[in-house]
């Protein structure tokens, strides 16, 4: 019994976690006009999704935002992690602490503070405000991911490279970057997903000129059921699964 009880429990929780997702996917292929009853298999909600120009536009906006936010936060985050790992400087603990606070802060606290800032400096709410906000909340996650990789890394490797005649720059390029590459990738993907998923911060700092997907979904699901959301959700699920698999594959390959 003591062997089986934990297994049964784990299985049960996994079933609960996956039931809603399976329901969503199944219902996305529902031909019925209403959300609940089953009206046969079909792709009608996928068609209506792609016929919706505003929806497709929001999709592209979101992808572009996530792409740029992930890239910017990976660059800044990786540099910060390297600095925290390699250099001694004053306020290092404070910097660490601040990143931790940003990570733990409820999104809504970050959201209203950024809104206050953008209104104060008179920044037009739109792509730029969204990008600044998204990079800010992605940053600590990238730093943590890269730091974790660096802390598990043999300190003598850079020294060995220097000893063998590599300059600091060459060493960074030939030793450090390849070592942290998987972490950079993981951090980038994390940033990409966080950005694509964010509702709370975006609600505050987006403007009418730049509609993004999560906010569009939000306005759709607040009232009643919108079967297009099933189709959209399924597409997003497949998309993130492919990304996740890809990253795992690259990680596993890099370990060989």
């Amino acid at each position, binding site marked *: 019994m003591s062997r089986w009880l934990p297994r049964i429990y784990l299985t049960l929780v996994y079933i609960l976690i996956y039931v809603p997702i399976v329901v969503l996917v199944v219902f996305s292929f529902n031909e019925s006009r209403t959300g609940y009853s089953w009206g046969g298999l079909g792709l009608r909600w996928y068609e209506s999704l792609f016929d919706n120009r505003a929806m497709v536009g929001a999709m592209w906006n979101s992808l572009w935002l996530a792409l740029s936010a992930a890239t910017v936060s990976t660059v800044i985050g990786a540099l910060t992690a390297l600095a925290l790992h390699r250099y001694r400087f004053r306020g290092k603990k404070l910097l660490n602490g601040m990143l931790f606070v940003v990570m733990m802060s409820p999104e809504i606290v970050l959201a209203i503070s950024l809104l206050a800032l953008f209104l104060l400096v008179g920044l037009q709410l739109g792509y730029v405000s969204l990008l600044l906000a998204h990079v*800010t909340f992605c940053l600590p996650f990238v730093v943590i991911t890269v730091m974790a990789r660096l802390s598990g890394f043999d300190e003598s490797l850079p020294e060995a490279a220097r000893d063998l005649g590599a300059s600091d720059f060459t060493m960074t390029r030939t030793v450090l970057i390849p070592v942290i590459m998987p972490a950079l990738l993981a951090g980038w993907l994390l940033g990409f997903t966080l950005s694509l998923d964010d509702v709370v911060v975006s609600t505050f700092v987006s403007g009418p000129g730049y509609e993004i997907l999560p906010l569009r979904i939000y306005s759709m699901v607040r009232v009643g059921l919108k079967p297009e959301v099933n189709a959209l959700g399924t597409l997003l699920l497949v998309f993130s699964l492919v990304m996740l698999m890809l990253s795992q594959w690259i990680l596993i390959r890099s370990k060989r």
Partner: protein
Amino acid sequence: MHSVMQQPFKTAVLILVWGWLLFLVFVPNLLVVGASVMTRDPATFLSLPLNLDAYRQLFDPLYLEVFLHSLYMAAMTTLVCLLIGYPFAWALSKVGKQRQLVLIFLLIVPFWTNSLVRTYALKLILATNGLLNSALMSIGLIDEPLQLLYTEGAVIIGLVYLLLPFMILPLYSVFEDLRQELLLASHDLGAGRLSTFIHVIVPLTLPGVLAGVMLVLLPAMGLFFVPDILGGSRNLLVGNVIKNQFLDARNWPFGAAASIVLTVTMAFLMFAHRLSKRRLGEEGGS
């Protein structure tokens, strides 16, 4: 040569990251603190004089009730997550290494999926003519559909569903670190299963519990879209209040004061977490 090449790089990186944090974290938060002590102004959002009216308003019976109800739902969410997550993480740490990786992967797959969409999927199940009611009626357990959606329970279910991995992962990590030898030592010294659980397992997994509580309780007060989708107008979170004050009611001082309540809660939880880790000698200490 070495330092000449390093210094400009180091300086540039530090200026970049400090600048970013200063202008996009520190200054904005100061603005919020400032806003919370100013006076509401429909035209310019804020105006002088400085006062503590916003904080007083927090104790207005109408809002106090909303806050307490939000706190109750967040606490219930955290408790449910803990009750599900603690044995889950324990069981997970006992599974073979290879299978553990797969199970962790399965746990975070939903986390990589849009949370709005997942909340919406719950709506499909909980709605009056949704799947759960249909299923219960078809097996004859109930005659009329239950009101599941737009209840306190629905909000808690939604929050648990979104936040469960954040409870499980830190717990899993402390159970992974829990040395089997310590449990054997406890039994060896005469403690039974229950005593060992109370005196050894609980204190040693406490940092994970507190990390999980922190990661669940705070979002459970802020994720305003969950009540919007599942809870109706009566089951609001602190997040909903803040959002309404900033985007609809235009009462910035009050919204800012409410967000400071969240920040203070966070500070308190972070302090407790640090304390629990220090007790185990994992951080600081001499």
